[in-house]
Every structure is written in C-alpha cells, then in structure tokens.
C-alpha cells in the first residue's frame, strides 16, 4: 500500500466498521452519523490539502489557515466514538478527603527527607550503580 492506499484503506475500513457497529447496535444512529460524516469530510480534506500543497509554499500556507478550524474538528475521534475506548468510571472517582490525607502523609515523608538531608547532606553523592 502507498501512502494514499494506507489513508484510503483506513477510512474505508473505519467506514465499514462503523456500519457493522450500527447493524449490530453497538452504537446508536447518532453516533454512526457523526463518525460517517467525519470520515467523509476527512477524505475530502485529505484531497484538498493535496491540492493546496501543489501551490507555492506562501500561497498554500495562506490557504491552510483558512481551513484550520474545520480540520481541527476532524482531529479527535474521527473514526471511532468518543466514549468507546473508555472503561467505566464511577462518578465519585476521587475522594478529595482521602486524597488530601495521602498528600499530607507524603508531605510529611518529604519533610523527613529534608531533615535527613540537612543532617547528612552528602547522601545524594553516595549512590552506587549495581548492574
């Protein structure tokens, strides 16, 4: 596969996968349409950028700036849904109270290191490598 083939095969496979997921109700219709639209637009912009690159560097830079906003929308979750990769996360994923206690414990240990360093400032130079 050439660079073009790799790009085309990626979008063709992603499109086929998107249809398969809809058919087996692994995604909803809205999710299907979102990815389908992103795939179609991505392929169009790949061609458009190819055309722009045939212009002079000064001109293609100017033209690229004009499409910046549109292509940025295609830079995330362009071939798979936003939440498909996520493992489940509980709503209260972090307990601020316990996080604060952990933080204080670690600060206490850090303070002990600081005291140790003042008593024995050369300890960092005593490191030995064991291979």
């Amino acid at each position, binding site marked *: *596969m050439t660079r073009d083939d790799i790009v085309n095969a990626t979008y063709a496979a992603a499109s086929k996968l998107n249809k398969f997921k809809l058919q087996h109700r*692994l995604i909803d219709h809205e999710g299907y349409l979102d990815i389908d639209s992103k795939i179609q637009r991505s392929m169009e912009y790949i061609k458009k950028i*190819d055309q722009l690159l045939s212009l002079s560097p000064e001109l293609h830079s100017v033209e690229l700036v004009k499409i910046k906003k549109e292509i940025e929308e295609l830079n995330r979750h362009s071939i798979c849904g936003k939440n498909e990769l996520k493992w489940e996360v509980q709503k209260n994923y972090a307990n601020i109270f316990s996080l604060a206690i952990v933080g*204080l414990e*670690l*600060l206490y240990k850090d303070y002990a290191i*600081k005291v140790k360093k003042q008593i024995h400032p050369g300890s960092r130079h005593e490191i030995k490598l064991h291979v």
Partner: protein
Amino acid sequence: MMYDFVFLHAPSVYDFRKNSLLAGPISDVVPSSPVFEMYPIGITSIADYLERYGLRVKIINLANRMLMDQNFDVEKKLRKIKTKAFGIVLHWLPHAHGSIEIARIIKKLHPETPVIFGGLSATYFHKELIEYPFIDFVMRGDSTEKLMLLLLNKLETRETDYEEIPNLTWKKDNKPGFNPLTYVPDNLDDLDVPGYRYTIKSVFKYKNFLDPLPYNGWLQYPNTALLTARGCTQSCLICGGSKEAYLQNCGRKSLALRSPAKLAEDIQFIQRFSRAPIFILHDIRQGGPEYVIEFFSLLKDMKLKNEIVFELFQYADEEFFRQLHDAVPKYSIEITLETHDEKLRKLNGKFHCTNDKVIDTLNFVLKHDCNKIDLFFMVGIPGQTYQSALDNIDFCETIHLNCNKDSRLFYFVAPLAPFLDPASTAFEYPEKYGYKRFCYSLEDHRAAIAQPSWKHMLSYEQMR
C-alpha cells in the same frame, strides 16, 4: 523557588495552535489528542527517585497546558522557571518537532542552564540530538533514574568528568562524547514505575495541579497505569518496545520485571485516592506462571475496589481467566490483534495462533465476567494489502457472531501512523518487510510531523 530539575513535556508540533494540521485518526485509539499531550510515565519515576534524595523536581506538561488554554504563554511560563537543569522528553517520535523547539526556546531564555534529553527516541537519535547547539546531554537507556542523579550531582558540584556516567551522551567545548550503554538494570523494585506518590505529592508541595496533569480530560477520566516490566519478551515487527528493539536501542538482553508484591503495593496506593480503572501495562504472563499465580494471590487478598485492565499478547486458556476472575472482581481486557490474517499475525508476532483460538480466548473472557474487551486492528502492518485491511471488519463480524453478539466486545481500527517506531525490526529492515521508508534521520521525522495532513506525515509506505 529554585528547582534542581524541571521536566518539560512538549506537544508533538510546536506551536500546534498556530498551524493547520489534519492529524486525522493518528491518536484515535490512545488517551492523548494528536498533540500527544500525555507524557511517558517513566518521568514520574525519575522525579520520584530524585526527590528521595531531597532534590526538588517539577514536571510541566506544556503540551497539556497549551491544549487546555489557547492563551497559555509558553515563553512567559518558561522564563520564570529557576532550575539547575531542564529535562526534555523525547520518548515517542511524534514529539520530534515540539521537543526540539522547546529546547531551542529554553536555551534562548536560560543560556547557562543545561538541557538534557531522554527517552527511547532520544536514545535512538542521540548522536543527532547532541549536534544541536541548544542540547547539552542525552541520557540513554530505559532505566535512567540513578544515572540522572549522578549527572545532576556532577552539575551541582560543577565537575565535568562526564565520561564516568554510563549511557550518557555529552559535549564539552562543542565536542561530543558517547559513553558506552552499560547500565541496564534487571530489577526495578527499588523504583516506583510510575511514581504516583511523587505526582500526588508534587501537587501539594508545589501548589500546582495543572502542570503535572497527564492528559487533557484526566480530571474527568482519571485512569492510571502500572508498568509490569521494562523490556519485552515479544518480537512484534512494528513495535519500538519489542525484545529486539530493546536489545538494539537500550542494550537490554532480558526483561526487568517489577515483582508482584510491588505491583500490588502500588494498586493499594492508587485505591486510596482513585476509583478509576488501573491499566496493567504488558501481558503479566511475561513473568511466567509462578509470577501470575503470586500476583493473582496478592490481588485476591486485597479488597479490590477499582477495575483492573489487563493486556493480552497471545492466546490464553480458560483456566487463566478463571483464576483472573477469582482474584479480580472487576476487570477488562485489551487485545491488539492487528489483523484477521493468521499468516500476517505469525509474521508480525502478536497472537500468532489460529482465528479459532482467538475466538476461544474471547469466549473464555466473556464467560468469566469480563467487563469490557477492546480489540484493535491496524492498517499498514507488514504484508497487508488494501483488501486485507478491509477484510478485518469481516472478521469482526465473525467474532461477533461466534461470541453471541456480546455487547462487551468493542472493535477498533487504526492506522500504523504517523511513524514506524525507531529500533523496531520494521524500521531497521524496511525492505525485508516490504516497507519503503521516507524518514531516516530525526530531522526527517521532525519535518514530517509538521506536514499539513497525516498522509504526508506517514514515514513509510509499502513497496509494490
């Protein structure tokens, strides 16, 4: 505040906010955006180790700060930092552009402060990196915690006998020195990999929770990961972390495993502050059957509250999942299958078994109450044709029908992009595996990643 060392994590392209880049799907199946704002977890390990000796170390994820705030002023931020040395991460090659540009800015703002590069890609391209006038050192290898302390000690005492530090690439009077890569430890138990203790502590100690955030959206989806080993037992052709790549790039002849006890201790620690999933990186079976039994036994004795995510590199029998579920109440599985083609899988190294065995593995997982199974297919692997890439989706359907259309199965397809991994077998012997490489040097990759579409970023194509 004066720091002893400040780590900077650059965006893939600097400044991505000003450039128009159609990065497309290159980061669709990783937690990062195309800016690749997630930093390699190894830097927290280095930071943790250095702070044990009383050094003040800070991690600044510039890429994420830039992503989170369009007006974040990088130069203003960097100008204010007072540190004895800067560390810049070039672990994944897509950072080839951003890391170099950040180093250039640092040297402009702090001409007297040493700039040290590290990471697997920096190790591979160390000779090229040291040629840049704004880079002073490259610390090579996969385990540089202790070496970094040795180097920072030298800088502290202004000693310049750098030839004493293994794995170091350095320069003196503009002449480079390349020390042999001899420090390759086979035990990681005296390290925290990653250093979550450091990360939590740094938020309180330096009163800044934005700088060390791992990626955009972490506060909403704060998953964590634990590294089981450095090195690998597998020989996957396209992987820069394969057995061959580690040997070639880091001189690593064998796996350096973290002990099951150490892993369990880290899981206990994470459980204290997070209920998010914990991803165990690498297939734990790399450690052998006794390692797996010990690890499962420790997990079983623990009151596990978090979901644990495991990676599988090869076929697993039902007994494995029975034991796994017995030890872990809630778990998910990640499998990078790459292709439906059994011959290509054999060639590439992952899941080199029959498709029937793949389906068997999945049915075993499903039977033993797995929460979610992610299956990844890839476009661009050695020997693959356009049609073969499309046929992967037919195999998804075969799997689905043979697994009772189970909705816990999630299917993904992604391109091998943007680059072939340096030091991977495919990178080293492209013609042998049907590749034509467009990029050879670091500078080639630096130019490629700044191209306006991911098609032009690709560092390779297949030979006809």
